[in-house]
């Protein structure tokens, strides 16, 4: 395709694609060796995936540095798509030669800045989690298997990031789901863990279904799964439609977004993530901070040009993100389990990213993805360290005063908390500031799409919700730090707590350092505050150019002229949040209990997470699964007996004549209506009576019905 070219890769020469394949295959190899021979290897094999991951990280880092240093990032597209077939790296999977639609099923690597960033994040966090797990999982009976699963997960995640093809993305997406299922349910003896992994898997599948349908719609219209081709054709479709996106594109974009809703735990499919904290804490750090949940955000980023063509879908994305950010933050305020707080914080931060993307600020959203990966992984690992020190006590009310006993953990977690709260000079500040700026100026390319400018009421919602959520973030994160580390110990475990071993604290330190510096502009191109969304330049996606040759996007979406307003908002919300936290928990000026009592109904709703789990359980899960037998029995009683109990009985009633109508038709209808919601699975019971002649009657009836339908209706 014109517009995309192969660049000279100085550092790597022609081997860049093989390097990327190495990044992908190292963890797979580690998994394969570890799952079969792990237990027989020295140290039960933990070093193998760790070293493999470290190698992958080094490779990713060098790719990333090349990407950063390159003067013109738009040239950094490297794809082994069909023109590059001679590279021998494109794996022609589904189609033999000469079949139309050839390119769609070729496994190829799409490497651009987005990929570079994601590779760095995934490999680094994964590597650190491997190291951390050596301490945390010590003595677990299934220790080798844990590392194998980590390898499998890393492989799937890297594949997801590297592929240039929606179909393969789906495959890796499902693999990520599978491996996260294995990891969350690692301690499956615990019923809660077994349930949590099931819940995570099934809930995300709900979103995936929508995504699959969206993919089908894209396929149906474009006959391609290749990202670049999709963007190109989307542009053409918009032009062909007179500058207005065709309706199906909006629907397809929203359906595709359902995948991220599930995977990135957005409202209303966020319910799995808090439960997933039942998994080992390193898993929480890996999956629920840095990688798997980021996959949804990544997908939106990857499909961003497509979304840009569908402003209404962008609005949905922005609203879902902003709402999730605020919604989860409110729940986070009330929780006492340290990991639950972090879980809701994660949901909230993911909401930030999604909202930023929805407002058209690709750079801001993905920058937050990266900085969030640093500080949230640090926080999770820190909480793991705390839990390790507290002998698996997770209730913050029983902690306190850990500052002196676990100084390294405290310092790193404090740094990360400052970052997540958005204190200037910490990494989170830059990205959060960019997001606030983006919500102030939601600027997808509407002018060029001949649509009215985005100034509607709905578009202004994020700019209210996001700062509010940021305030709450600062508040509950400092609440966490104060309750855990400050004050005096509130239990025996807290008094006896001790610092974790070095293989746990070193990753903490690394991540803590990144939480401070990881987003700072001077680290990369020496530019401070002026154009501080350097990230925009970094993820400015050359893939866009393929599309923007047709419809132009604003070049610097989201940070043009944001000036001081977002900065001030950020500072105010962060400052007041922190201040409130200190007033409540450190200096005890206000009593949290009193406030809670004053707004008891609201507090209760929030504390119980708005009863969303109960809602699902009551209205979706139970009707579908648990109350099956009850429903079936009732169904038998009312519907089966009333309606289908054989021809003879009906005939007798007919002969009796009296009350038959009332009894069967009226009551039957009423009962039928009452059971309409549960009819589905129980339908079998109507027919499958076990009586031979019923079957034959149904055979004859079915044949008649088919004849009638065919003759008169088709």
């Amino acid at each position, binding site marked *: 395709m014109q517009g995309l070219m192969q660049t000279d890769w100085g550092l790597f020469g022609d081997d860049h694609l093989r390097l990327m394949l190495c990044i992908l295959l190292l963890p797979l190899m580690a998994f394969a060796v570890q799952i079969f021979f792990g237990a027989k290897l020295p140290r039960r094999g933990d070093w193998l995936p760790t070293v493999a991951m470290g190698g992958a990280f080094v490779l990713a880092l060098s790719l990333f540095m090349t990407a950063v240093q390159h003067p013109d990032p738009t040239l950094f597209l490297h794809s082994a798509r069909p023109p590059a077939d001679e590279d021998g790296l494109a794996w022609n999977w589904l189609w033999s030669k000469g079949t139309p639609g050839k390119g769609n099923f070729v496994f190829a690597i799409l490497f651009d800045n987005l990929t570079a960033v994601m590779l760095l994040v995934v490999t680094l966090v994964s590597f650190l989690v491997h190291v951390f797990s050596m301490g945390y999982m010590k003595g677990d009976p299934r220790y080798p298997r844990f590392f194998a699963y980590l390898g499998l997960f890393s492989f799937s995640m890297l594949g997801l990031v590297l592929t240039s093809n929606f179909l393969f993305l789906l495959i890796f997406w499902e693999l990520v789901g599978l491996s996260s299922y294995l990891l969350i349910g690692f301690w499956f003896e615990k019923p809660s863990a077994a349930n949590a992994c099931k819940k995570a898997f099934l809930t995300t599948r709900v979103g995936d279904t929508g995504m699959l349908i969206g993919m089908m719609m894209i396929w149906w219209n474009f006959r391609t799964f290749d990202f670049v081709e999709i963007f190109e054709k989307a542009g053409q479709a918009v032009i062909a439609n007179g500058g207005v996106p065709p309706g199906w594109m909006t629907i397809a974009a929203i359906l595709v977004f359902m995948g991220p809703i599930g995977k990135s735990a957005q409202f209303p499919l966020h319910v799995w993530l808090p439960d997933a904290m039942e998994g080992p804490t390193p898993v929480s750090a890996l999956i629920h901070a840095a990688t798997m949940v980021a996959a949804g955000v990544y997908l939106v980023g990857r499909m961003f040009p497509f979304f840009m063509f569908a402003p209404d879908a962008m609005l949905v994305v922005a609203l879902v993100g902003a709402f999730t950010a605020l919604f989860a933050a409110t729940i986070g305020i009330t929780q006492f389990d340290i990991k639950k707080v972090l879980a809701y914080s994660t949901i909230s931060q993911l909401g930030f990213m999604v909202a930023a993307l929805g407002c058209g600020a690709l750079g801001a959203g993905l920058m937050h993805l990266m900085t969030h990966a640093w500080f949230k992984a640090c926080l999770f690992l820190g909480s793991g360290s705390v839990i390790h020190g507290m002998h698996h006590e997770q209730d913050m009310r029983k902690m306190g005063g850990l500052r002196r006993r676990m100084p390294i953990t405290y310092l790193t977690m404090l740094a990360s908390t400052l970052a997540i709260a958005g204190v200037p000079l910490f990494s989170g500040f830059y990205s959060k500031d960019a997001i606030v700026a983006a919500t102030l100026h939601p600027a997808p390319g509407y002018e060029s799409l001949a649509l009215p400018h985005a100034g509607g009421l709905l578009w202004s919602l994020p700019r209210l919700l996001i700062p509010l959520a940021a305030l709450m973030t600062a508040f509950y994160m400092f609440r966490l730090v104060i309750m855990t580390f400050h004050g005096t110990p509130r239990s025996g475990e807290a008094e006896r707590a001790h610092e974790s071993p070095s293989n746990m604290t070193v990753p903490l330190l690394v991540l803590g350092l990144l939480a401070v510096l990881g987003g700072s502009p001077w680290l990369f191109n020496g530019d401070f505050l002026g154009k501080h969304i350097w990230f925009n330049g970094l993820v400015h996606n050359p893939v866009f150019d393929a599309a923007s040759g047709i419809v132009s996007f604003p070049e610097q979406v989201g940070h043009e002229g944001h000036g001081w307003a977002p900065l001030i908002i950020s500072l105010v919300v962060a400052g007041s949040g922190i201040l409130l936290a200190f007033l409540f928990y450190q200096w005890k000026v206000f009593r949290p209990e009193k406030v809670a009592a004053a707004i008891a109904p609201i507090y209760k709703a929030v504390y119980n997470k708005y009863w969303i789990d109960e809602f699902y359980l009551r209205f979706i899960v139970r009707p579908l699964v648990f109350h099956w037998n009850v429903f*079936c029995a009732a169904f038998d009683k009312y519907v089966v007996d009333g309606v289908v109990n054989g021809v003879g009985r009906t005939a007798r009633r007919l002969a009796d004549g009296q009350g038959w109508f009332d009894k069967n038709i009226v009551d039957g209808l009423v009962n039928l209506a009452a059971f309409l919601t549960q009819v589905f699975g129980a339908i*079998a*019971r109507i027919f*499958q*009576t*076990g*009586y*031979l*002649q019923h079957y*034959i*009657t149904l055979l*004859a009836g079915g044949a008649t019905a088919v004849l009638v339908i065919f003759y008169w209706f088709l």
Partner: protein
Amino acid sequence: MSPVPLHWYLAVAFLLFVLGLLVVLSRRNLIYILMGVELILNASSLVFVAFGSYRGAKGLLDGTVIGTFIVVLAAAEATIALAIVLNIFGTFHSVRPEDPNLLKE
């Protein structure tokens, strides 16, 4: 001598088919049900032969051959059916079609 129209044969065959179906659907003894199946098969066979015969010599040959095969298969089926019914009688001590009712939802 005016021949019998083909319609009439078809009408009888249809009647036989419906009667067989009725027997299968309504009688409460397995042996009756098997008899009903025989009626259905005979109805089909009659249609084959009648149509064949009205198409001339080639058709008559086809119809006869098919009819023969149907007779043979019906005999085999009856044998198996009776064996199975006897087996059912041995295990369930009943020849009512509704008595074997272990397998259901």
